């Protein structure tokens, strides 16, 4: 599992960071992104749907939003 810290970034920066990180990852790998902008709960799932990646989980822990994504084929 790869960790990505996108805390304190405002949308769409967490989406951009996620996108750029996933570009470097292999199919089947998972990415865990931590964010503080609540907008990610809308944008990262939308980005995953558009690009065909699998959103495995979303959670909110003490004001942080954590999303887990499995990389699918481009």
């Amino acid at each position, binding site marked *: 599992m790869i960790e990505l810290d996108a805390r*304190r970034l405002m949308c*769409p920066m967490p*989406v951009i960071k996620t996108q750029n990180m996933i570009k470097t990852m292999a199919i089947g790998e998972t990415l865990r992104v931590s964010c503080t902008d*609540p*907008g990610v709960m*809308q944008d990262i799932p939308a980005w995953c749907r*558009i690009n065909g990646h699998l959103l495995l989980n979303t959670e909110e822990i003490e004001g942080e939003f954590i999303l887990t994504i499995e990389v699918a084929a481009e």
Partner: protein
Amino acid sequence: MATQKKAVALISGGLDSLLAAKVMLEQGVHVEGINFYTGFCVEGHTHAIRKKDKAKPKRNNALWSAEMLGIKLHIIDIIEEYKQVLLNPKHGYGANMNPCLDCKIFMVGKAKEWALENGFDFIITGEVIGQRPMSQRKDTMPVISAESGADDLLLRPLCAKNLPETLPEREGWVNRDELHDFSGRTRKPQMALAEKFGFVDYAQPAGGCCFLTDKAYSVKLTDLWASRGKRDYEIDDIMLLKVGRHIRPKPNFKLIVAREEGENNFLQGYKKQFITLRTMSHKGPLTLLDGSVNDGDFELAARIVARFSQGRDAELVDVEVTENGVSKNISVKPFAADEIQEAWRV
């Protein structure tokens, strides 16, 4: 069968770029979207810092457009490179600090580079002749094509019939007869086309999709440059201009006063980078102090902050000033309403 041609579409999140991409999809072209983030883009979330705006939808309109179209979207961070566009626009600014023509040239140029790197054949935009006073005029359309280097690889499906033929049309990759001839400021043809395609609930942001077209924002940006004696900015600067009341009581510093809880929370994230002021004896907003100050300035700053606290009518308000993690308390008499001069408000 001929191989399917590929177009990269500039997707802003507005209706025009949505329609332009759809027109291409209807012609069987493979379309992927590209969206540039300059740092000045108005999207749901920066609006949603303020708690009162939280009820409004917070979607990112470019992502929403791509989802409606069923296409991929590539979001590109151009914050750094965009500085040159904003700071030195060859074609100048529009009504506010918006360098629209240079911006368009830059974005189309970037899209062209992207198209070449990714094996795409041409570029499309949602531009319409006469729609915008600065960048979307009959005489500026060819300037964008030429100066971006895209030349006749740049197709504007919504107004192509009013423009010279481009390569995708000449080569028969797209059918010119099925492109459009929209022009002028009217939105009627776009709305009719949206209805035809079944698009509802598309974004029609009143103030456009860019803070640089906003008067109040442009004034704050100009003030920032004037006070620093140089035209430059970092991403944090431009984010902070979107938040709070900005009050400059002296040329050497300004205060950024949170207006409500959402902004308070947002400003908390900047506590390490700035001198902060907080009222201790009464409830009040978090305030950042931006600039360089001498000891006498703290009292002035604290009196302003006290004015925006619940102790505004009190004899004395205790204000905590924190700099580099070291705090001190000062007691001040809050300013009366008319002592906060209009000219201080940025």
